[in-house]
């Protein structure tokens, strides 16, 4: 099953490689991983998407908790949560396609954030499924470049992951 594991990490060099190294050393897979500093500059927040049986996920969380750089950890998929991913995409926009791409982008509530006479750059956020659907709709033909952030996620409700 797919799990989203959220971590508060010490914002120190090497912390990321400890996490990544753990996954490669023990043969766990990482589907995606995003990380950035939080409002507390000594902490980073990491969102890690992985797949595995219950036993493997249990080991993953235990092993992650063992790392000294991991301050807190929660498996968001255990409760209600919201996940969002951002897509930046550069698409050919010439002649008839120019209007069509704009229309599709509007339907998906994308925003055109850069324009040239040959291309649009579109920003789109949503769940991974939504981004997949948008890419599928556009088709391969006109795509110049795709950048996906990987999901970030947060639990629903008023409780938060903090110290």
């Amino acid at each position, binding site marked *: 099953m797919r799990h989203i594991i959220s971590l508060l990490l010490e914002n120190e060099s090497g912390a990321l490689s400890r996490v990544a190294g753990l996954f490669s050393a023990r043969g766990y897979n990482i589907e995606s991983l995003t990380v950035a500093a939080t409002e507390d500059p000594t902490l980073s927040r990491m969102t890690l998407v992985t797949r595995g049986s219950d036993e493997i996920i249990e080991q993953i969380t*235990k092993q992650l908790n063992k790392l000294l750089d991991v301050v807190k950890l929660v498996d968001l998929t255990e409760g209600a949560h919201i996940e969002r991913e951002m897509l930046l995409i550069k698409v050919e926009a010439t002649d008839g396609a120019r209007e069509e791409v704009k229309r599709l982008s509007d339907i998906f509530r994308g925003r055109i954030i850069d324009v040239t006479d040959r291309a649009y750059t579109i920003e789109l956020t949503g769940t991974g499924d939504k981004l997949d659907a948008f890419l599928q709709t556009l088709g391969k033909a006109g795509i110049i470049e795709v950048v996906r952030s990987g999901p970030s996620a947060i639990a629903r409700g008023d409780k938060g992951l903090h110290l």
Partner: protein
Amino acid sequence: MELTGAEIFVRCLRDEGVEYVFGYPGGASLHIYDALYKQDEVKHVLVRHEQGAAHAADGYARSSGKPGVVLVTSGPGVTNTVTGIATAYMDSIPIVVFSGQVATSLIGNDAFQEVDAVGITRPCVKHNFLVKDVKNLAETIKKAFYIATTGRPGPVVVDIPKDVTAHKTEYHYPKSVSLRSYSPVTKGHSGQIRKAVDLIMQAKRPMIYTGGGVILGESSKQLTEFVRLLGYPCTNTLMGLGAFPATDPLFVGMLGMHGTYEANMAMHECDVLVAIGARFDDRVTGELSKFCPHARIVHVDIDPSSISKNVPVEIPIVGSVDNVLRDMIKLVKESKQRPDKAALQAWWKQINEWRSLECLKYEHSDKVIKPQAVLEKLYELTRGDAFVTSDVGQHQMWAAQFYKFDKPRRWINSGGLGTMGFGLPAAIGAQFAHPGETVVCVTGEASIQMCIQELSTCKQYSLPIKIVNLNNRYMGMVRQWQEFFYDRRYSHSYMDALPDFIKLAESYGHVGMQIDKPSDVEGALKEAFKLKDRLVFMDFITDQTENVYPMIAAGKGQHEMQLSPCRRDTSAERELA
């Protein structure tokens, strides 16, 4: 007053109570070595290869319970310690390795003797640090010792760039440190402990299986009390030998691949298994699908990730073995329930039947030295009271089977990583920790050559280690597997072109002996132990084709042990078949 980083380093060790540092100098650690030279509180032991330093610190730690300390230079200095660090990591041994590093301004430039020490050691340390500012040095060192010695112990590496050892700052060694992301559990969950004791008291065929955690947690006294209170059978893993007295009738021997028949059969047949400070290693469980089919399992461990890793557990208890055992003893004493006497009697009757097979018996010989006979004699002559280090292979298994350890920290071997070359440097560490005691290194002619250079260290520090070399001219365990599973194709397992070990020992300034007659074994050992202030290298020319029995082959369960040919025609095995 401001001190240099190098001076601070030495002060930190002093204030941490470090007695010995095992090391080897080099460019990046020169400032530190200069600071060591100017004092005499922290003693430095010069090894001949950095691997030896790591193993020596490890042997020091295993035999004393205090953290071992290593000091090496950058680049090859630290890469040479990696095997030793991994060895300590697999067996959860507290060592702190300090490595010199090129100056901070050079890091990342492929400078001379530069290596990413933190990166290279990351997968085999509990934690590691690169100190970039002298202001953080003392605190980092305190953290390193704290992390290495608390919770599930393990090696910690501290990489110190050369300029940091030259920069100056005020010295202050913190009394304690706390890390927000690290707070090892100590007390076990009282509800879980209650549940566990309830189950334990109901057992009809109980088994207590304990590992290295009991020794690391200094809990053999509690374990012994707990087992004797219940009258249940107890087995130890290879790492756990000595935690429960081997001469106690409740002890059924080591379990696992080369454990005793009775221990493994009792594991297979038990209805309640109490695992304490053990991690269900593959060499213990055999084929997992056949492991303890009837047992409800209680597992006590300080490391949550050890629990239900290989074997699902019904009652997990996370906590220090020491505390949990105390709590369990208390509950057992308070409990109105008593162990089921009739069931226990029947269980012991069964176990004693398995025992009567005498699975460790071997064919004696008056023509060729049987390795087992050497170990039996060694046990007898040292009255089971020596610190015994070993390398890896057949000799290691025989030592584990035939030397009966009644006390913890006497049996020092590389169980997890299985590092050949460990024995001699580990003996150095053990001898430093216990200067007046008998330290024996049981080894083989293949293993001993992997760190043979440390004979020179032994000479320099006059260490009277006794080396028992079981020389069968083979990598015995490799040969045994080739005999069993590769149709006797002995691919590259023969040790040819061996040195003359007598001359070798003598050239290092030690005493060398060669023993090739069974009748000379006892005399040679006695003579060696009489030489109280000399290292004696005893080269026993042993039976070339002796195998370690009994054995659980790959894919087999604990109840499917292969017995020694000389034990196979007994009734117990017929019944088994």
